[in-house]
């Protein structure tokens, strides 16, 4: 069953088409990879899906409900949550408080929110950082905090925007494991990632964007052997 349907979604900034007639579906429980060269419109698509931009054309259907025109807070309450390419910790609040802000989306009680937050902090293995200020964490831990915070909003669909960006290989491995753990929790994920090895490993299916348009869609094996994709990434072959 499709949890998210993207139907002919376009987004124009003036005359520039950041997304042009993008169409695909995400099935429940899977990990969908979203890749493409810089400027392909991946983050724009995320912003359209999560309510930061209204799409210029087309339709976004989440869990059977049309999402066009909803604000990001309403989108989050309906069960779709995103992280940011550039991490956005609530710097002067502690790690636990950061995650509690997410949990408060589902409860009005601070005690309950704290309980939920501590649970999610365990999922991302930040237990020993609970009382630290979010702004004092190194980048790898900030990314994990970001994930714990959106998990606390109890999403059905999680959109991760380059959670491995700027991380060293060991940290990236931890995030890969984390994404697979989250899949086991039954949460559907869409992942933007530049690290090809990582995205091939975790994705059940991959959509490739290029200059705002969908270039290809398929299993990781199909994508690596797709000539158009290789061309988009590496340019014209001289051989």
């Amino acid at each position, binding site marked *: 069953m499709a949890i998210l349907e993207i139907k002919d979604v376009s987004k124009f900034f003036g005359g520039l088409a950041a997304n042009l007639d993008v169409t695909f579906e995400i099935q429940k429980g899977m990990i969908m990879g979203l890749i493409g060269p810089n400027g392909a419109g991946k983050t724009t698509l995320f912003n359209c899906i999560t309510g930061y931009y209204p799409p210029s054309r087309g339709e976004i259907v989440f869990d059977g409900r049309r999402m066009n025109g909803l604000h990001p807070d309403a989108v989050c309450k309906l069960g779709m949550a995103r992280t940011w390419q550039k991490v*956005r910790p609530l710097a002067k609040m502690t790690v636990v408080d950061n995650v509690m*802000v997410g949990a*408060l989306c589902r409860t009005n009680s601070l005690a309950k929110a704290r309980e939920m937050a501590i649970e999610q902090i365990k999922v991302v293995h930040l237990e020993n950082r609970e*009382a630290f200020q979010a702004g*004092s964490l190194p980048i790898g831990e900030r990314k994990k905090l970001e994930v714990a915070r959106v998990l606390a909003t109890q999403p059905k669909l999680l959109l991760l925007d380059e959670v491995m960006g700027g991380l060293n290989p060991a940290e990236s491995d931890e995030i890969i494991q984390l994404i697979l753990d989250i899949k086991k929790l039954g949460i559907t994920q869409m992942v933007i990632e530049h690290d090809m090895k990582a995205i091939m490993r975790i994705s059940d299916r991959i959509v490739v964007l290029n200059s705002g348009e969908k270039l290809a869609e398929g299993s990781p094996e199909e994508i690596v052997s797709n000539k158009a994709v290789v061309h988009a990434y590496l340019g014209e072959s001289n051989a």
Partner: protein
Amino acid sequence: MRPLTNNMRGIAAIPVLLGLVTVIVLFLIPKFVHSTYALHMMILIFISIIMGSGWNLLGGYTGQYSVGHAAYFGAGTYTTMILLQYHHLAPWYGVWAGAIMAVIVALVIGSICFRLRGPYFVLASIAVAEIFRVSALNLKNLTNGAEGILITEVPPLRIGGMVITDFMSKVPFYYAGLVIVLVVILVTWRVQNSKLGYYFQAIREDQDAAHSLGINLSLYKNIALSLSAIFTSLAGSLYGLYVGFIDPGTVLGLDLSVQIVMTVIIGGIGTIFGPVIGALVLVPFSEALRSNMIAQALIDSGLVREDSGFGVFLKEQLSHAHVLIYGILLVVVIMYMPDGVMGFIKKLAAKGRKVEAA
């Protein structure tokens, strides 16, 4: 950095006890202190705390730096004073009408200014408050324009048939101020320890992140603004009734807006007691400057000779320079105590703990 200890319960008992003693002492002061000047200073400090704490809810916790809070101060005090002077409605009801008026003004201003962020919000808040000042200056039928409103009598406060107080001395204003101070501190504490406080602070730290975590930005910003406006208007009404005279320049001016912000910046932004400390520092300080107390003290102590050129200069000019010295104080605080006096104290305490641990 070191993580905070979770041994909070034991530590909290001391401040609570200290707070209770302070409150009892404050309630007893008018019984023993009969100096009208001392009571006058206390009332001014109370008013400053109330408006500072009101601003703190929006500026300190929610991160929306309004430099137009005079609009709410003015909306409150003008409503109360007009109802009292021209419609003979007792201030006991008037102040609530003033608070409601301030909330209405707040929602109008919010709908305009909250579209903007950062410095643009600040500029818009100043501009909109100026509109209110200029309007009050020109709507002569309603506000009596630049001549202002002079209260000729404050009817006694009655509950049932009993006269509680006639407002003839400073004492009732002292108690009114003290009660509102306690309420605003309690409300701030309650907000800080609730979902509201978490959402306010999330908005302060990062609006986009807050939005993506399910926080309705305009709803929570308007809640913060409304709470803020209520207390600022109460401070305004208390001021108007106490002084007995208001005019647009005093209660709607940019000077007042800046003074409100400064109280909180100096005391410590986004903390419960920041505005209290700010008021305790600023009100006596500006009073001392204005009343030439500092110049006189310097001369009396023998540091400066009264008949020297410098002594004459101080005596004649220092009181005019209080705005300048205010500014210098602000610069010093921002340079050496970027988180205000409260932040400075916390830093010292943390240093002390570190030394203890070593």
